[in-house]
């Protein structure tokens, strides 16, 4: 009997999230984390940012990027804990905490994005 598991889906989320994190996160983190707060580049004014953030296409793209990043991070962190700390015996607890965090984060992302719009 072959057992069906969710593991392939989790790996799929991990790898698509890895692509999203590699493509989008460096530039966004550089702009919003360093260049704008430190005044290296004049930050966009509120109206412009609000207009960009409330465009339906932006909402969809940001939501997809955030959710995939969260599942990517959850999956990778899960295995970091297994290998780094050698706590494979706690695997259910670790999995629940990691993916649970990603699910909560996804719900929060949807909520925040809809309140900006």
């Amino acid at each position: 009997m072959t057992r069906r598991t969710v593991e392939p889906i989790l790996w799929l989320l991990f790898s698509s999230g890895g692509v999203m994190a590699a493509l989008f996160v460096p530039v966004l983190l550089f702009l919003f984390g360093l260049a704008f707060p430190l005044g290296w580049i004049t930050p966009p004014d509120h109206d412009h940012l609000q207009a960009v953030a409330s465009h339906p296409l932006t909402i969809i793209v940001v939501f997809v990027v955030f959710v995939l990043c969260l599942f990517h991070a959850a999956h990778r962190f899960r295995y970091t804990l297994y290998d780094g700390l050698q706590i494979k015996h706690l695997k259910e607890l670790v999995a629940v905490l990691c993916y649970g965090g990603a699910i909560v984060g996804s719900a929060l992302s949807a909520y925040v994005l809809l309140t900006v719009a």
Partner: protein
Amino acid sequence: MSGHPAYTEFHPRWYRRQMSTWWWLGKRAYLVFILRELSSVFVAWFVVFGLLMLRAVGQGDGQYQRFLDWAASPWVVVVNVVALLFVLLHAITWFNLAPKAMVVRLRGQRVPGSLVAASQYAGWVVLSAFVIWLLVGAG
């Protein structure tokens, strides 16, 4: 033969060497592996930071300015510098690994890995330039 060995899901417990928790400090390749894996923490931090930013934007100009001031405070800057380094480590290792994991064929010929990697880097540059233009240029 007497008795039944206890069933284990994994390999039988004949002999297992105890590994130190710090096994990954011994060799450069192991250290880079663990650092790359730890980039996950900073990817998650980026999402939290982005959500705080978006919430501030949604609450109006005053909150947005306050967010920028908070983001300029020393500890947040330090976290974001570290996070950026880790995310860059993730991006570079990811792009370099992809051609090994994925075989691209064009007219029956295998596209060389260096070309696959180069096209990813090109896409990365174009996308980053577009994001900067969208946020800063298209005022």
